[in-house]
Every structure is written in C-alpha cells, then in structure tokens.
C-alpha cells in the first residue's frame, strides 16, 4: 500500500507542527507536508492535521484569528467533502472557532496551564481516528494547555452524547469518569469530539507526542495508525 499523505497546517505561532511531522513521517513512515496558513493548496493530502501551539499568540481567543486564515477555506471544503481532519489542542480550538466542531473552550478551571499525561478513554471507534481502538480503551496521552476547558450549552451536549459524538473523555486509569480525573473542568469530562459525519475529530491531548516509549507513552500511535488503516481499506475497497 502507498503512503498516506498528511497535510499539517502551520499558522504563525503553531509549535507542534514538527512533532506531528516527526511522528507521521519518522515514526510511522508516512508522508507529511507542512502547509503554511496562507497557502490554499493541500497538495492532494489524504488527511489534514491542525497541530497544537499558540497560533497568533492566542490573542483575542485561542484559534479565533487562525480560523480566518486563507487555508481554512480549503480545510472546510476538505472536511465537508468527507476528508479526515484531526485538530490537536490549538488545532481543536481552531476547529471550534471555525464552526467545524460545536462548542467552545474556556480557561482551565483552576487557571493553571497543565502539562502532564492524562488518561483518555476512547468512547467510540467509528471515526477514522479511533477505528483501531476498542470502545472503553484507556490511552495515556500528554496534555499541555491553559484553555482546554470544553464547554457547550446543555442542548449541544445532549446532542453530542445522543449521537455518539464524544470521542474521548478524561478518566481515571481504569476508565472511570470522576471529577478528580477531569483535570481542566471540561463539561462531561469531554476531551475530544467529532462532527456529524464523523470525519472531523478534535481533541485537546497530543497523540503525536505519544508515539514512542522514549517520550513516556506510545499510546498515541493508535490515533494516527487508525486513520492510515481507515484510508488503506477505502483505497483497497475502491
């Protein structure tokens, strides 16, 4: 099978683009290309990644300015035609601000920037980024954010839950939801969600920083391996 091609969008202030590039190309042996935010050519990418960082310094609100970048029109078209899009941390914030995912982010409930490994429970495996997991699988993934406190109004939360669109949740090591393990205070301990057509996934934790045991966990590989496998099977079927 040919390599899966990832386009990693780089905004001024993005700083996890190279981690994503390394994980995808060096660790997983796929093709990765950095795409500058003013560029409107996704180079025939199979997957789009919006990486973590501090686009525009988080000025105004995290992701609030990056969402207006020229590349985002192409990303929206790509998403609306079913292309897999993964928003990581600031990338998730950009997707929220762009309206490609519902809800918003608030400052972490205890006002601290939290930089640590958390337990992430995979809620549903029918997304391109979780298909290699089993429902309820707990992954050890690092977070590094100050505004990761997910919020959506009650009716949106109800809709997300009813339609199985909460993809990842913060839990205890054995997968129990508990305030004690909800590090940033996110509503319903939500760490990641998907859109209606399940091809756009956003999450605050950094799977690209958990692809090798040397950095503390290799559980994040599963997220990237899932989309590679998902695209492999599509191509084989086609």
């Amino acid at each position, binding site marked *: 099978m040919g390599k899966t091609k990832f386009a990693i969008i780089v905004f001024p202030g993005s700083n996890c683009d190279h981690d994503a590039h390394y994980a995808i190309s060096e660790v997983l042996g796929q093709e990765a290309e950095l795409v500058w935010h003013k560029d409107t050519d996704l180079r025939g990418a199979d997957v789009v990644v919006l990486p973590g960082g501090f686009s525009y310094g988080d000025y105004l609100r995290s992701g609030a300015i990056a969402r*207006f970048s020229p590349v985002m029109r192409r990303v929206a078209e790509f998403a609306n035609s079913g292309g897999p899009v993964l928003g990581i941390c600031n990338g998730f914030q950009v997707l929220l*601000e762009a309206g490609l995912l519902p809800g918003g982010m*608030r400052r972490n*409930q205890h*006002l601290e920037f939290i930089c640590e490994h958390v337990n992430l429970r995979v809620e549903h495996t029918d997304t391109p980024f979780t298909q290699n997991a089993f429902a309820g699988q707990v992954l050890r993934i690092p977070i590094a954010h100050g505004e990761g406190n997910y*919020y959506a109004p009650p009716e949106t939360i109800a809709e997300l839950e009813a339609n199985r669109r909460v993809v990842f949740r913060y839990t205890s090591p054995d997968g129990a939801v508990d305030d004690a393990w909800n590090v940033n*205070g996110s509503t319903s301990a939500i760490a990641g969600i998907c859109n209606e057509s399940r091809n756009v996934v956003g999450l605050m934790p950094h799977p690209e920083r958990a692809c090798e045991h040397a950095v503390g966990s290799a559980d994040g590989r599963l997220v990237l391996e899932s989309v590679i496998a998902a695209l492999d099977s599509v191509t084989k079927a086609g």
Partner: protein
Amino acid sequence: MKAKVYVTLKPSILDPQGKTITQALHTLGYGGIADVRQGKFFEFDIEADSPDEARATVSEVAEHVLANPVIEIFRVEVE
C-alpha cells in the same frame, strides 16, 4: 468616530478568573464586593456616516470576531 465594545462571559458560564479576583479582594478586606466578572474591552476608531452605521459595523465585528457566541455576550457603545 469612537466606539467601544465590552465582551463578557455569559452569566451562565463559570468565571474562575473573576472568582479568583473576588477572593483576593476579600483577603484585602473588601467584604462588600460579592462578585467580580472579568471581560474584555475594545476601543475602535471607525469611519462611518452616522453613529448608527458605526454601531452596525462594530456590532457585526463584535458578533463575528470579538466575541465567541458560544460562551460570550457583548455590548456596543458609540460616541
């Protein structure tokens, strides 16, 4: 023409920064301050044919850029 926009969290949204400030003020002896909510303030220098036009433009900017309607509300003042 000058315009001002105040952006605040919706009342239903918890404001940990505001709470922290309130607690700090209590420590300083300001027991009479029951609550503080922290928001953002923007000042505009805008060219418009009328205050109404200025208000309309600034409101549009506030709605689409300055405030996130999921968690924030805004108020516009035009001089």
